């Protein structure tokens, strides 16, 4: 049965309008997502910079650690710095991984392990790199008798860069932020990684 021409044009117009609305909705959602991600990244950068400022202040209050033949000096400095930082972080919120920032990290890590062509290699690096399973808390020292799980370089490319004082580390399925010089756990995202 032939429909009138005006009716067919009307139907096409309706479909086109629905398509455009959906497209606009998609764009809008993507833009909102980008804005949310950008805000979380900016917030992360601010929090990291604040931590580094605190680290530098505490480090400057100690005798400078230079190249030394005396390994005791290294150990003493590491412990003293860790204590100073812990003390300075008591009271108030010194969280780095806020819920929004944690969500961003989880999203990026999940995306890398689910859809990146290098996911098998990244998983292999973790699996073969002597993974550790221990429950570490904020302000803990990283245990001296445990190895540091190797960070897959392709995963590192997906995470926001860090200043030289800090590194990301994988502990079990947690992602840990480690202060190298103080050997101190700065913050943790629990269960950030999939089962490897």
């Amino acid at each position, binding site marked *: 049965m032939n429909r009138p021409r005006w009716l067919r044009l009307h139907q096409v117009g309706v479909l086109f309008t629905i398509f455009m609305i959906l497209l606009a909705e998609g764009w809008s959602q993507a833009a909102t997502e980008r804005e949310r991600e950008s805000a979380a990244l900016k917030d992360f950068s601010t929090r990291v910079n604040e931590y580094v400022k605190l680290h530098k202040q505490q480090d400057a209050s100690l005798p400078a*650690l*230079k*190249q*030394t*033949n*005396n*390994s*005791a*000096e*290294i*150990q003493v*400095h*590491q412990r003293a710095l860790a204590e100073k930082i812990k003390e300075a972080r008591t009271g108030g919120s010194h969280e780095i991984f806020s819920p929004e920032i944690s969500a961003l990290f989880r999203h990026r890590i999940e995306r890398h392990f689910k859809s990146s062509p*290098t996911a098998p*290699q*990244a998983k*292999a*690096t973790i699996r*073969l*790199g*002597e993974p550790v399973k221990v429950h570490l808390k904020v302000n803990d020292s990283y245990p*001296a*008798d445990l*190895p*540091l*799980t*190797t*960070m*897959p*370089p*392709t995963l*590192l*490319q997906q995470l926001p*860069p*860090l200043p*030289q004082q800090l*590194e990301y580390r994988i502990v079990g399925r947690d992602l840990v932020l480690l202060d*190298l*010089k103080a*050997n101190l756990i700065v913050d943790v995202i629990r269960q950030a990684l999939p089962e490897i």
Partner: protein
Amino acid sequence: MASQLANMDLMRRTRYVSLLFSIVLLQPQAQELTLPLKNDSVRFAVIGDSGTGKTPQYELAAKMSELRQKFPFEFVLMLGDNMYGGESPRDFEKKFERPYKPLLDAGVKFYAALGNHDNPNQRFYKPFNMDGKQYYTYKKGPIRFFAMDSNYVDRAQLQWIEKELQNSDSVWKICYFHHPLYSSGARHGSDTDLRLLLEPLFIKYGVNVVLAGHEHFYERIKPQNGIYYFTSGAASKLRRGNIRKSILSAKGFDQDLSFMLMEVSGDQLHFQVISRDGRTIDGGTLERQTEADRAQKASHWKVVGFLGIR
């Protein structure tokens, strides 16, 4: 024309085969120095996974000191896991200062890379010559060494290695770090994630030799993409029988502890690998690669690499 092309192809193939076989294999034999000890050569030793502080480490260290009487190497490359377990002053003494005391007293310098068992603050320990850095570079005669931290290859380290390799006009470029890009080890195997990012840079900027530890045995890998790869991670710990049959491997030894001696002179790198009981387990001479060699080996690698990837 066709015959000329065929001849050229034959010449290239012959050259490639001759280059591969310029590695002269030695049969296991009693302690006998085969290195040429040429005038003005650069001589060094290589150890990996050394820091247990237990008797085997001391035994191998004693063998190193003994051989230095015949082959006076000036410095030692440490390929990571310099300190297992604790890192108290007592540990530094037990796991480094005492076993290598004769070498340290003789003025031998150690240049350490960090392993997964090492606290990054080892960079402040002067005898490791890291100058407070997790990754660093230095020059010895015609060789530029690049000590990397393979535990954490982030964008900053990638940018650093690219810049340093690009700026280096040294005749020889030797990179060393803890995790092997190629390995036949059953325990760890090749770190292919690391390889994805590092190998293109090594090829682009003409790295000649790559040394790694992590696997507790010795292995010489067949040249990959024109680069010579060695694993030497048995200076204290041994994973006996851990080398799997692999198309990658040119020579492997997992029956005892070992260390490497190397001598660079002109366009040749001579190496000898010594076990704890003083046997030579591998050795030979590597020719420095030319651009043409690299191009030829690159096409060969496509086959070997594809089959060898795990």
